[in-house]
């Protein structure tokens, strides 16, 4: 796989929840400073893959290495402290808190000066959030919510950012905006793992890609290459090519 040095390596992961196994023998290398896209139909195991990386799923077999260190058994909050950030697909903001409080939470362990600086950066990327600072996050529109969710991750200046279907349920125009924002982040040097069902949209902005179906990796490579493959559609459904 092309790109920078690997920041995260998954080796022969079989994982799921409790007794249930969703992923089988997954190998994944995430290069630093690039956008790695995970695509696949629903039920393929994309969310479980991100949960596995963040320690929210049960690992049956295999190991997760982060910056060369085995973190297979590390609790999620400790992973967050190690520089990982995860934007969940659903319930990814605190809806009873104000927008500002949501953002504050992400910077609670930083010095005030630094926190303010980072918040300004966020407001530059998403000016609408600045206007809505004192509003309850629950009152935001769908697109604004996603922006807030991504901002929360961004504020932590994570070394590795996991995004789970940030465009789910968004109108095409909004989805496009969100994708563009992610590309911008990628250009700024963030390392991102983006799980998306919207394969076309995601592959267009990604650097690398893996396609999973039925809990297994079906294809991998440069995002652009995958996008151009004629048999993509069939692979996508996990069918024999």
């Amino acid at each position, binding site marked *: 796989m092309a790109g920078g040095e690997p920041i995260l390596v998954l080796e022969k992961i079989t994982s799921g929840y409790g007794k249930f196994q969703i992923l089988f023998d997954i190998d994944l290398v995430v290069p630093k400073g690039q956008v790695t896209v995970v695509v696949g139909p629903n039920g393929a195991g994309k969310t479980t893959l991100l949960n596995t990386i963040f320690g929210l799923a049960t690992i049956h077999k295999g190991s997760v290495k982060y910056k060369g260190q085995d973190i297979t058994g590390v609790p999620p909050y400790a992973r967050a402290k190690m520089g990982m950030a995860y934007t969940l697909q659903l319930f990814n903001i605190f809806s009873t808190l104000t927008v500002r409080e949501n953002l504050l939470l992400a910077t609670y362990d930083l010095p005030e000066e630094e926190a303010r600086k980072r918040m300004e950066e966020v407001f530059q990327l998403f000016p609408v959030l600045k206007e809505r600072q004192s509003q309850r996050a629950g009152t935001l529109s769908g697109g604004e919510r996603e922006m807030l969710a991504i901002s929360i991750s961004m504020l932590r200046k994570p070394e590795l950012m996991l995004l789970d279907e940030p465009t789910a349920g968004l109108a095409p125009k909004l989805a496009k905006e969100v994708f563009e924002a992610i590309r911008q982040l990628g250009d700024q040097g963030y390392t991102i793992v983006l799980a998306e069902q919207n394969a076309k949209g995601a592959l267009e902005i990604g650097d690398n890609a893996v396609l999973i179906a039925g*809990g297994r990796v079906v294809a991998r490579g440069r995002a652009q290459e995958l996008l151009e493959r004629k048999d993509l559609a069939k692979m996508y459904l*996990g069918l024999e090519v």
Partner: protein
Amino acid sequence: MTISSQELESSLEEQEVILWTERVVKRFGGIVALDGVSVKLPRKKIVLLIGPNGSGKTTLVNVITGFLVPEEGRVYYMGRDITGFKPHIITRMGILRTFQIPKPFLNLTVLENLLVAQPPGSYESPYRALLSKRIWLSREKKNVEKAFEILKLLGLEGLWDQRATSLSGAGLKLLEVGRALMSDAKLIIMDEPAAGVNPAKAHEIFSTLQKLRDEKNLTFLVIEHRIDIAAPYADYAYAMHLGRIISEGVPQKVLNDRAVIESYIGA
């Protein structure tokens, strides 16, 4: 296994259809979840229902099983209009659904799980049970026979006295099927039988379904995301997108349909 689509479609005409829907419409607020859906489930067949998230699969199942009442359209089962029937009435008529995440009776043994599934009746009255065994004894004996027969069919007979908690993910899915059989269901609607199960086991589940189709004359409607595993076992397939049926036919044909593939991949 390979039936050409023409063959099947022509045979559909003659063959009995166990359940069909006619232009079912269901709205939630402003959203149209089902937009004139008509499906036919041929008797003794495994029918696959696919589609991306939010395409309306679960809503359709909820309408068929009586959990939702459609705004327009009808549901017919064995020639009878069952639109708007209460769920438990529909269950008693022989339509049973299993859960995506199996819901076994955890502290009951595998055998007990099946025995509970017998059709409801007066032999389950606690007051009579306090007075005498006679009210239920003979029936219970028959039920146990039947349950063991089913367990054998499912390959679970060795585990009959184990608690349901001790079963594997695939075992739990099969247990659900077993309960459905015990309840004398004729049409079993399964929600993602392969989810959370490793592929080898998933194939076992589907071949068990085929065996049941042939030996017990059952009809299956299967919602499944892992199309690669399910497709070879299905006799017929429907694909949904945005509340409509966008393709139907033998699985191979449906899976090669451009509209189906695009619905999955997105814009």
